[in-house]
């Protein structure tokens, strides 16, 4: 076990998968120079045929990655969540829909690393958290790791998965240090975390808090604060939104009866909205209080440092929400 950063964990995952399987290659803007860090060393280690710097044409190169995956390649595409809009047609009309509309003939083992930079003064165009839209459109597996271990294990699983996977990596967590097991500590010698398995970050009895991406850290702080006030909070990180481990969430709700859902995406039709609807349909009789969502405000991301922090979930908002469900 060693402590490494989230970005380092991603880098390890990429290197292990590229070493293991020649079909895996890497593509994105400025990835050879690795300005964002996750693609560090890749060009030196794997060369120009496997590490491609692309022109600024997301629709074009996402489509090329998708097309190459149809004929036996396993691309990892690096992008920013905020740049995915440019490629929506390739993502939706092609990656999401091809397998089904061709009656199963297509196999699309393509992985997109979509980094979410938000909360860092990047303003309206560079701060998207769009994963709810990719939950709604059938055909994508949607992954949201909140720890270095999860980032590594889930990225490896994504590369091995034979469907289009989008990992929404939280840019706020790049420098987050966490325990990541060494390969020789692991049965099977590799860190592979399965999809559809939520992580109970902290057990508790009085309130369930489900949190996504960097909100997991905020939820844990809120839980620690509430502990001091004698409220036992259970924190769950779904880790993947498609497939979603609703069993773990519903089991927790049956135990606590109270739920707060924390989601950095915009509140309308957020992942939290979908989870709330599942709980209200399948866990209704376990609820002791209304479900509360703590999600980003339904506005664009303002530049001013005086305004931006008001948008997102934070420890204080989560604490207030927990208190509200307890007092109900």
């Amino acid at each position: 076990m060693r402590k490494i950063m989230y970005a380092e964990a991603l880098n390890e995952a990429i290197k292990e998968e590229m070493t293991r399987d020649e079909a895996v290659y890497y593509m994105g803007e400025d990835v050879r120079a690795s300005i964002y860090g996750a693609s560090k060393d890749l060009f030196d280690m794997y060369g120009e045929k496997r590490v491609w710097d692309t022109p600024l044409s997301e629709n074009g190169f996402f489509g090329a990655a998708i097309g190459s995956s149809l004929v036996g390649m396993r691309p990892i595409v690096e992008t920013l969540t905020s740049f995915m809009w440019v490629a929506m047609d390739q993502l939706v009309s092609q990656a999401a829909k091809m397998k089904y509309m061709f009656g199963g003939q297509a196999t699309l083992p393509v992985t997109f690393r979509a980094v979410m930079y938000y909360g860092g003064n990047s303003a309206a165009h560079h701060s998207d958290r769009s994963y709810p839209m990719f939950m709604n459109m059938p055909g994508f597996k949607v992954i949201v790791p909140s720890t270095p271990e999860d980032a590594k294990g889930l990225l490896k699983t994504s590369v091995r998965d034979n469907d289009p996977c989008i990992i929404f990596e939280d840019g706020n967590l790049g420098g987050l240090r966490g325990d990541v097991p060494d390969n020789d500590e692991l049965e099977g010698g590799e860190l592979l975390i399965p999809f559809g398995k939520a992580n109970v970050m902290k057990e508790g009895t009085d309130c369930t808090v489900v949190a996504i991406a960097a909100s997991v850290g905020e939820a844990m702080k809120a839980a620690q604060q509430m502990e001091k006030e004698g409220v036992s909070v259970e924190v769950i990180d779904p880790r993947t939104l498609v497939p979603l481990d609703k069993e773990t969430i519903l089991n927790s709700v049956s135990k606590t009866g109270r739920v707060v859902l924390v989601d950095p995406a915009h509140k309308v039709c957020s992942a939290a909205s979908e989870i709330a609807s599942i709980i209200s349909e399948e866990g209704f009789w376990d609820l002791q209080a209304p479900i509360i969502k703590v999600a980003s405000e339904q506005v664009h991301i303002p530049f001013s440092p005086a305004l931006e922090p008001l948008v997102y979930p934070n420890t204080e908002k989560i604490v207030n929400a927990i208190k509200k469900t307890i007092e109900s």
Partner: protein
Amino acid sequence: MNLPKESILLMLRKMWTIRHFEYAVMECHESGEIVGALHSYIGEEGVAVGVCAALRDSDYIAGNHRSHGHPLAKGGDVNKAMAEIFGKKTGYCKGKGGSMHLADFSVGILGESGIVASSVPITVGAGLAAKIRGEDFVSLVFFGDGASNQGACHESMNLAALWKLPVIFVCENNQFAVTTSYKDSVSVENISDRASAYNMPGLTIDGQDVMAMYEATNEAVIRARNGEGPTLIEGLTYRYYDHSLGLAAVRRIEYRTDEDIQKWRERDPIILLKDTLISQNIATQEECDAIENEEKKNVENALEFARKSPYPEPEQLFEDMWSTPIPQP
């Protein structure tokens, strides 16, 4: 002609298959037996057939909504194509795709896309795979005059030319995007002029001359296999029927004249090839007629196959979403 006789007769045969197939689906559409939108390829057979004659089974193609010609030209199965258009479970896509989404991965047909130009970057990707693996297959995409204005086309051409990928871009310029003439939508005189903007060769070919389409494609394929990069081939052609069947009943303006259509009917690709074969003593009228009759019969058999085939069962609704299965919400 520097192709063996069987190859040329095969081109004639394939054009007849497509022609009779399109007549058959047109009839079934009029009678309501086939539902949904159908985009007739009649008049354009020379393009798909000439182009695909230059390709191996191991080469890849992708196309667009005017989709029946491409798979049939590339060695697709006429029964499965018909059944797919009927929405039956014996179709190419188990009835899940329909007319606009025919695909046969077993002979390198990576699918027809309903969104025009959307399959162009996909095709570039297949070419990228060839380059990464050092294999000598090529990939080729069909798109129309309308699609040539889409950003996806331009991004694709830039990528393929920049990285010298073994890709062939075939623009089937049938001169109209629904009712809009390409002269009112394309900023250059010939669509092939756009190639120079991407530093690759571009040529405009008579799309009704199946041999000319073959020769141009063959040269482009050789370039591609030699690592010299992509080519843009514009096949100037014509569709005798409207953008989609049934559109004539609803469109308000006459966007082309009957004289125009008649002029192009006189340059029918099948008649042109047949006339050349007979006048150059390569084949007789009887040989040509025999081929047409065989393909007419094949299409009739395909119709029967499609009609007799079952529809998919309700459970099949949830199949084919995933290669690595997950629970269905």
